[in-house]
């Protein structure tokens, strides 16, 4: 079962170039089919995990760890795979009509399949080097997708993104090499045993530092965020949704927390400096990026900065490092994936119908684009943490964690900057959707059906994760948080004993 998460999109990626020679529409069909199948797998996987028939360790080629490569499907992986595919499918659905303005349809779908395969592969991999390989797959696919329009600015931002991303990748590869030299194994569980027996040495700190830089670039955390706004400006909407919603979380947050919590086995009591650093970086991202966002005139750029600040929330939660904060961070991974995906798709739907991205040039779209508008509004409410949407619970848990850890200022910053989040999103909502100006807004039409279906799907998810937060907490987030807070269980699960 587990390799199918990778085989299916890869088959899609290889088949699309062949099949679209026969008939161009097949690219759409195959792409969406793969997306739907993957959603099914991900949901089934979560259900199986809750039912106790998983967690699974799948030994590739039958070679047991540490000799072979294993796929590990624990609760954290389940969460990440779930968001990948839950956002991926609506994004693919959105693409069917959205791609009408571009050429090279099969290339897009092929790259998108590769992106999905890479993201799933990173989430499932239980092997350090293999994780790097799949990070590269996802990253390279995303570089090309960002520049998909091949206009000058798009190429420029794609190249900028690629340079930064590749520096990150090479730093990660360097630290993998260091880790191999030190532990003489690549399996993460095996590595964890060696490292945790040896304690924290200068080499561990070096590796942690390089990995932190590498993953921070991937997750666009504040000192390394500069690629993200440009990339989002250039990328096609579904790619923006994937990039903000999923990519930075899988390659950045997930991979980093896997390494930090499970491989190095760090907890706040072992390494308070490291966790305080994370808190500091998280706060920096929250504050600076929110302040940047509120000054933007372009609503996509605004959303991009908002992503940076929301990633700050996740990092803050991880850095606080107690149970509730990590639950909050993981819940935010989930809720932000869905809502930011939704917001990007909705804003691109607006751009597609009106042809402009300037906030000041628009107004009163709610009358003629009700579905797009209301999904945008509800997504914004979820993002700024208004109940009963998903975003509320992540905010609540992060605040509870911060209060529990006696970090009152981070709690207050996290709370008040969610007001600022609402503030900059309201700037878009009010000016673009509601204010009645006598512009040509009456000529604007609602977007076509596949786009609306994608939007409604994501809105429903944001609401469902909030209203049904109890099952989400019990089945998905809680077990995942346990994986992170009890570091040794991972090695035990993979290697047995």
């Amino acid at each position: 079962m587990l390799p199918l998460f990778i085989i299916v999109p890869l088959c899609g990626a290889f088949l699309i170039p062949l099949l679209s020679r026969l008939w161009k529409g097949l690219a759409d069909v195959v792409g969406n089919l793969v997306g739907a199948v993957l959603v099914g797998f991900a949901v089934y996987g979560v259900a199986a995990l809750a039912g106790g028939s998983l967690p699974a360790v799948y030994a590739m080629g039958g070679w047991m760890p540490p000799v072979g490569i294993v796929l590990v499907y624990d609760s954290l992986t389940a969460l990440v795979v779930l968001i990948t595919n839950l956002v991926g499918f609506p994004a693919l659905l959105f693409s069917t009509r959205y791609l009408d303005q571009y050429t090279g349809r099969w290339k897009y779908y092929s790259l998108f399949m590769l992106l999905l395969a890479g993201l799933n592969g990173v989430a499932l991999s239980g092997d350090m080097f293999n994780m790097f390989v799949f990070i590269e797959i996802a990253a390279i696919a995303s570089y090309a997708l960002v520049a998909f329009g091949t206009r000058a600015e798009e190429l420029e931002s794609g190249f900028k993104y690629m340079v930064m991303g590749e520096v990150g990748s090479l730093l990660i590869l360097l630290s993998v090499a260091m880790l191999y030299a030190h532990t003489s194994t690549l399996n993460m569980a095996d590595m964890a045993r060696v490292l945790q027996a040896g304690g924290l040495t200068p080499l561990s700190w070096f590796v942690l530092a390089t990995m932190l830089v590498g993953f921070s670039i991937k997750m666009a955390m504040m000192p390394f965020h500069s690629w993200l706004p440009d990339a989002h400006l250039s990328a096609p909407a579904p790619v923006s949704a994937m990039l903000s919603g999923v990519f930075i979380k899988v390659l950045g947050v997930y991979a980093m927390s896997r390494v930090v919590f499970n491989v190095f086995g760090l907890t706040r009591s072992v390494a308070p400096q490291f966790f305080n650093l994370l808190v500091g970086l998280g706060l920096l991202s929250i504050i600076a990026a929110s302040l940047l966002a509120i000054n933007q005139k372009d609503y996509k750029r605004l959303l991009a900065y908002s992503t940076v600040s929301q990633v700050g929330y996740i990092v803050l939660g991880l850095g606080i490092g107690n149970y509730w904060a990590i639950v909050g961070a993981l819940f935010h991974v989930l809720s932000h994936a869905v809502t930011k995906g939704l917001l990007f798709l909705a804003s691109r739907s607006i751009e597609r119908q009106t042809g402009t991205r300037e906030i000041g040039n628009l107004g009163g779209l709610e009358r003629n684009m009700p579905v797009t508008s209301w999904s945008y509004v509800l997504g914004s409410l979820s993002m700024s943490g208004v109940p009963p949407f998903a975003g509320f619970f992540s905010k609540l848990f992060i605040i509870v964690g911060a209060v529990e850890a006696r970090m009152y200022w981070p709690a207050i910053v996290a709370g008040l900057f969610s007001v600022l989040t609402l503030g900059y999103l309201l700037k878009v909502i009010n000016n673009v959707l509601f204010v009645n100006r006598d512009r040509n807004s009456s000529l604007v039409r609602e977007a076509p059906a596949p786009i609306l279906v994608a939007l409604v799907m994501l809105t429903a998810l944001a609401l469902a994760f909030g209203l049904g937060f109890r099952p989400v907490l019990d089945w998905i987030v809680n077990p995942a948080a346990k994986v992170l807070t009890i570091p040794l269980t991972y090695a035990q699960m993979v290697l047995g004993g």
Partner: protein
Amino acid sequence: MIELYVLLVAMLAAAVVAIEIKDLLAAAVSMGMVGFSVAILFILVQAPDLAIVQIVVEILAVVFFAAVILRTTHDDSTVQLRITSRMILPAVLYGIFVLMFVAVMTSVLRELPVFGSPLMRVAGNYLAVGLNQSGAANLVTAIVLDFRAYDTIGEAVVLFTAVVGVLTIVRQIGRKADAGEEHA
């Protein structure tokens, strides 16, 4: 192992040339020199598989570089000895980074196993059962295509991604709306 050290020095020298020389074609060739030094170093450390792949890849990489440079320009107009103000900040940052790197490295390198005596905790398994279990006499191939075949799928997919990516990037017309403007 004197030849190893000589090669290392040559490699570093070629790298400096590749970075600093004004003619881009020459820079690409110097980069090729680095690559070939690496290939010979692979032979010295008993990695013939790597050497072969490195050589062919290096040739190909230089061909790619040359193809692009020939289509564009030879001349690196940005090479200048003058120090401009906008170089200062990156230079300082880079300097700080190098200092930190070096400071940490002295203690980190001490922790690595000594050159020439690896730990080989896991690798022992491959040597012991490789031929028997996979049937391949070349143990590197056995690892690449059997024990860690999944990595190789990943590798093939990376290449595929890059190919599709390159084909995506070189499209002259990205948007249908741009078609007229590009031809004009």
